[in-house]
C-alpha cells in the first residue's frame, strides 16, 4: 500500500511506555513534491516528521487541539489547529487516505475521552473487512504478454480432440512426404536408364504411380478429417472465450462500465474472439503443419545427402532473424489497430443512440468528421503496419529463392562430379520447393499470430479485471431460509468518492423495516449515489451499510440483490414481449403471477389494449410505449420479485403530471409493507414518506417529517418554497395564456382564481394543496441550479 517506505533512521522518539497507536506515512511535502514524512499519534502526543525538517515535532494531546482532514483533486491535507490558529499542515496523496482516516479517528478518541456505551467498535473497518473479501485488486499481478498461451485454459476441455487432431496432422504430413520420395527411383531407375537405351519396365512404373496415387488419396482423407476436427474444436474454444468474457463482464461493477466505452467492449468481445477463433482453426493448424513438414523434410534431406541438406538450410537463420525483427513491431501495430477499431465502434455507439440530439442540433457533418477522424487514424496505423509487413513478406520470398539458387548450383556441380544422381537432385528440388513454400507461409503466419496475440491480450484484459464490488469468500446467509431479509437498513458513517471527488461524506441513517424514506435535495447532492451504495452497485469508501444487522459486503451479491426492487427514472425494457419484461427478475413466474403484478402496477388495462396483449414485443428501448406505460411495466417487474427493500430513483420525474398520478397509484401498491427509499425531486411525490432526509453536498442536513421540517425553516423549507413558487408562476402563466387566447369572462375569472389559489398554496405550509397545484400545473421538471461540488 505504501508507495514510499520510510527509512529506518527516522523512528519516532517515543518515551518509555509510549506506544504509537496510529501512523500516517505522508508522501508529499508542503510544496507538493513527492517526499516522505510521518505523523504518529500515541496515547499522549502527536508526533510529526516533515520532509526537510531536522527532527520530530510534537504536541501534547489536549481538547484544544483539532485535526482536520480535507482533500481536493487527489491531494489531501491534514491540519493541526488549536483555537488560535493553524499549528501545522501535512500533505499526502489519496493512496494514504485509509491511514489518514484511521489516524484522525485515533486522534479524536485519544484527545477526547469517549462517552461510555458508544457503539462504533461494532462497525467493521474497511481494512479489516478486506481480508474476508478475498481478491483485492492491488494483489493482482499484471498479466503476462504471452496472452496466446493463456488460451490453454480454454483448450483444456478439448484436449482429447486436440491430441487426435495433432496425430492426424502428423499422419497427413507424412503422407504428403511420400510422393517426392518416389520421384527418386522413378528418375534413377526408369527415366534415366530409358534415356540410356533401356526399355521402360511398365510393371515397375505402375507400382510407383500407384504408390503416388495411394499417397495422395490417404493425404486427402486424413487432411479432411484433421481440418474438420480442428475447426470444430477451435470454433468451440472461440465460443467459450466469448461467453467467458461476457459472463465476466456481467460480474463487473458499475464503476467498470462507467469507465469503459461500449464500442470498445463490443469490439473486444465480438471481433477479437472471432479473430482468435479463425487463428486457431486455420492458421495455427497451418503453422503446426508447416513445422512438422519442415522437420520431416529436413530429416529426409539429411538422410539422402547431409552436405546438400546443410546448404539448403542456409537461408533459415536469416529468415528467423527477420521474423524476430518484425514480430514485436507487428504486434504493437496490430494492438493499435484493435484499439482503433474500438474507437470507431465508440463513435458508432455514441452517435446511434444519440441520433436525436445529433439531428436536432444539425451536427451530422460534425459526427461524420469525427468518424472520419477515427477512420483516418485507423488508416494511419494500418499504413504503418503494412509498411513493415509489405517489406517483410517479399524479403522472405527473396531469401527462399536465393536458397533455391544455391541448391541448384551445388546440385549441378555435384551431379557433374558424379557425387549424386539426377534422381537425387530432382527429389531434393521437389522437397526443397515444399520446404521453402512452408517456410514462406510460416513467416506469413507471423502477422496473423501477432494479430491473434493482440486480440487475446485485449480479451484477457477484461477477464483479468477484478470486480471492485467483490463477492465475499464466505458469504453470510441472507435473511431467513427462503433468503428474505426483513429490510432494516442501518447506514453507519459512510463516505464515498468518485475518483477523487467526495460525493457522500459521513452519512448516518436508520431505516426500520417497512418504513418509507424520502431522499430530497438538489441534483448533485448525492441522493442517487446513496441509493447506488445501498444496492451495492458501488462499495462505500468509509463506514458501512448494514442490512438486518450485517454488513452488505458480507452477503453474496445475487442473494442480497434478490431482496431489492429498483424502479428507475428511465425504465429500461429489454427486447422481448411485455410478459418477458415483467418476469425479468423471476423468469419462472406463471402467467397468473405476471397478470397479478401488472394489475397491481396499473399496467394491465393498457397492456390489454395492445394488439398482442402481454405477447406484444417491445422494441430495443420499448419505443412503442409511452414513458408512463414503460414505467408501469418496470413497476410490475419490481412487484413480481416481491422485494423487501424497494428503491424508487426519481421514478416519476420523467412523466407528466397526469401520468404521475397513475404511477403514484401503482406505486402505492408497491410500497405497502416494504422498506422503501424514494429519491425525488418533486416533493409532491413524497407525500407518503414516513420521514424525509434532506441531503446537501453529500451530507444529511435535515431529517424528519414534512411538517416538522417546514417548521424548522431550513433547507427543506427553501426547496419546498422554490418549487411552490415555480408551480405558481407556471400555473399563472398558463391561465393568463388561456385567457389571452380566449378572452371571455370565464377564462379571466379562472385565471384569477387559479393564481390566487396557487399563491395561497405557496404561502401555506400544508402539503396537500401543493400537491394539488403541482398536479394541476404542467410538468417540466426543472431542476434547481446545480452547483458544482467542491
Amino acid at each position, binding site marked *: 500500500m505504501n*508507495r*514510499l517506505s520510510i527509512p529506518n533512521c527516522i523512528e519516532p522518539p517515543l518515551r518509555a511506555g509510549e506506544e504509537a497507536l496510529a501512523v500516517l506515512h505522508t*508522501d*508529499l511535502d*508542503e*510544496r*507538493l*513534491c*513527492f*517526499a516522505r514524512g510521518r505523523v504518529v499519534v500515541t496515547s499522549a502526543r502527536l508526533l510529526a516528521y516533515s520532509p526537510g525538517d531536522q527532527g520530530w515535532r510534537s504536541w501534547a494531546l489536549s481538547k484544544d487541539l483539532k485535526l482536520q482532514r480535507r482533500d*481536493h*483533486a*487527489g*491531494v489531501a*491535507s491534514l*491540519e493541526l*489547529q488549536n483555537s*488560535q*490558529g*493553524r499549528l501545522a*499542515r501535512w500533505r499526502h*496523496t*489519496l*493512496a494514504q*487516505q485509509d491511514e489518514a482516516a484511521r489516524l484522525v479517528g485515533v486522534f479524536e478518541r485519544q484527545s477526547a475521552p469517549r462517552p461510555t456505551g458508544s457503539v462504533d467498535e461494532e462497525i467493521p473497518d474497511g481494512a479489516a473487512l478486506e481480508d474476508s473479501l478475498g481478491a483485492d*485488486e492491488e494483489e*493482482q499481478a*499484471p*498479466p*503476462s*504478454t504471452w*496472452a496466446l498461451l493463456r488460451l490453454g485454459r480454454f483448450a483444456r476441455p478439448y484436449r482429447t480432440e486436440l491430441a487426435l487432431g495433432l496425430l492426424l496432422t502428423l499422419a497427413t504430413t507424412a503422407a504428403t512426404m511420400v510422393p517426392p520420395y518416389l520421384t527418386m527411383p522413378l528418375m534413377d531407375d526408369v527415366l534415366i536408364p530409358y534415356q540410356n537405351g533401356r526399355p521402360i519396365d511398365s510393371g515397375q512404373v505402375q507400382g510407383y504411380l500407384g504408390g503416388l496415387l495411394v499417397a495422395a488419396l490417404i493425404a486427402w482423407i486424413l487432411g479432411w478429417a484433421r481440418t474438420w476436427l480442428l475447426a470444430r474444436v477451435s470454433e468451440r474454444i472461440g465460443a467459450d472465450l466469448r461467453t467467458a468474457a461476457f459472463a465476466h463482464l456481467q460480474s463487473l461493477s458499475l464503476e467498470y462500465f462507467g*469507465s*469503459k*466505452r461500449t464500442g*470498445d467492449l463490443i469490439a473486444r468481445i465480438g471481433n477479437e474472439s472471432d479473430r482468435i477463433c479463425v487463428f486457431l482453426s486455420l492458421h495455427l493448424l497451418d503453422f503446426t503443419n508447416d513445422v512438422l513438414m519442415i522437420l520431416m523434410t529436413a530429416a529426409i534431406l539429411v538422410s539422402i545427402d547431409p552436405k546438400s541438406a546443410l546448404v539448403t538450410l542456409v537461408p533459415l537463420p536469416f529468415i528467423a532473424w527477420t521474423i524476430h525483427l518484425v514480430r514485436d513491431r507487428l504486434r*504493437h501495430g496490430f*494492438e*493499435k489497430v484493435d*484499439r482503433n477499431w474500438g474507437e470507431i465502434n465508440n463513435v458508432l455507439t455514441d452517435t446511434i443512440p444519440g441520433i436525436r440530439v445529433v439531428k436536432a442540433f444539425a451536427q451530422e457533418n460534425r459526427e461524420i468528421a469525427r468518424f472520419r477522424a477515427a477512420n483516418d487514424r485507423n488508416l494511419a496505423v494500418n499504413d504503418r503496419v503494412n509498411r513493415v509487413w509489405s517489406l517483410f513478406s517479399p524479403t522472405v520470398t527473396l531469401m527462399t529463392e536465393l536458397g533455391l539458387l544455391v541448391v541448384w548450383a551445388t546440385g549441378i556441380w555435384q551431379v557433374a562430379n558424379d557425387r549424386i544422381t539426377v534422381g537425387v537432385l530432382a527429389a531434393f528440388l521437389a522437397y526443397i520447393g515444399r520446404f521453402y513454400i512452408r517456410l514462406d507461409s510460416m513467416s506469413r503466419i507471423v502477422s496473423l499470430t501477432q494479430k491473434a496475440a493482440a486480440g487475446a*491480450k485485449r480479451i*484477457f*484484459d477484461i477477464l*483479468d*479485471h477484478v470486480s471492485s464490488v467483490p463477492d465475499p469468500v464466505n458469504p453470510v446467509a441472507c435473511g431467513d431460509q427462503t433468503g428474505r431479509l426483513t429490510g432494516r437498513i442501518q447506514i453507519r458513517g459512510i463516505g464515498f*468518492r468518485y*475518483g*477523487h471527488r467526495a460525493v457522500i461524506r459521513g452519512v448516518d441513517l436508520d431505516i426500520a423495516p417497512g418504513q418509507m424514506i424520502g431522499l430530497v435535495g438538489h441534483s448533485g447532492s448525492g441522493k442517487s449515489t446513496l441509493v447506488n451504495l445501498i444496492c451495492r452497485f458501488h462499495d462505500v469508501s468509509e463506514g458501512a451499510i448494514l442490512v438486518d444487522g450485517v454488513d452488505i459486503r458480507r452477503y453474496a451479491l445475487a442473494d442480497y440483490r434478490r431482496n431489492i426492487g429498483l424502479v428507475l427514472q428511465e425504465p429500461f425494457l429489454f427486447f422481448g414481449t411485455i410478459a418477458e419484461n415483467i418476469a425479468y427478475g423471476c423468469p419462472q413466474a406463471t402467467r397468473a403471477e405476471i397478470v397479478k403484478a401488472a394489475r397491481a402496477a396499473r399496467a394491465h388495462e393498457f397492456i390489454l389494449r395492445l394488439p398482442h396483449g402481454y405477447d406484444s414485443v417491445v422494441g430495443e428501448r420499448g419505443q412503442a410505449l409511452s414513458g408512463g406505460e414503460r414505467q408501469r411495466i418496470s413497476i410490475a417487474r419490481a412487484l413480481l420479485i416481491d422485494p423487501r427493500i424497494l428503491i424508487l430513483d426519481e421514478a416519476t420525474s420523467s412523466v407528466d403530471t397526469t401520468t404521475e398520478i397513475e404511477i403514484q397509484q401503482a406505486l402505492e401498491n408497491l410500497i405497502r409493507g416494504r422498506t422503501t427509499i424514494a429519491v425525488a425531486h418533486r416533493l409532491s411525490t413524497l407525500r407518503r414518506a414516513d420521514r424525509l432526509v434532506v441531503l446537501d*453536498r453529500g451530507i444529511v442536513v435535515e431529517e424528519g417529517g414534512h411538517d416538522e421540517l417546514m417548521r424548522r425553516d431550513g433547507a427543506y423549507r427553501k426547496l419546498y418554497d422554490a418549487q411552490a413558487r415555480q408551480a405558481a408562476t407556471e400555473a399563472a402563466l398558463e391561465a393568463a395564456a388561456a385567457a389571452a387566447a380566449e378572452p371571455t369572462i370565464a377564462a379571466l375569472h379562472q385565471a384569477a382564481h387559479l393564481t390566487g389559489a396557487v399563491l395561497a398554496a405557496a404561502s401555506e405550509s400544508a402539503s396537500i394543496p401543493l400537491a394539488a397545484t403541482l398536479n394541476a400545473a404542467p410538468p417540466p421538471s426543472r431542476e434547481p*441550479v446545480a*452547483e*458544482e*461540488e*467542491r
Partner: protein
Amino acid sequence: MNQVFEFSLTRDAFGRLVMTSILGEVFVGVLPVRSFPITAPNEALALVGPHGEELAWIDQLDTQPESVRTLIAEELAAREFMPEIVKILSVSGFGAPSTWDIETNRGATRLTLRGEEYIRRLAGGGLLITDRYGIQFLIPDLKTLDRQSRQFLDRFL
C-alpha cells in the same frame, strides 16, 4: 449567484483566505478555482465560498492587484496537484493494471494505471493520466519526452 467584482483578500491565522466584498460582507475560507485548468489556466478564475457558492469572478488574473495575485497563487499552489511526467523509468507490463516508475517535476514516484481508458488525450498532443488513486499526471507534450518513455507510452495509446 451574485457577482462581486471588487473585493479584498487576506489570510487568517488558520491559513484560510478571507474575502471582504465591496459591500463589506466577509467570507472566511474562500477558495480560488480555475474554470479551465488545462486549456486556459490563467483566465476565468472564480473565488468560491466553503460551500462551493461563487463569490467573485476574475476574468484575467493579471488585472488583479499584486497582493491578491500572490495570495491566489499561493493558495492554488497548495491545492493544485498535477505532477508533470518528465520520464518513464520502467513499466511493470503492458497489460492493465500496470505500475510505472516515473520521474516527475515533483520528484520520483510510482503510478498504477488501471486501464488504457485512464489515459486522456489532450488537444495539442498532451496526455492526462489518472492513476488508481485519482492523481492526475500530465504530459504536456508527448514529443518532448525521451525516446524510451515514448516507446513505453506508445504501447498504451
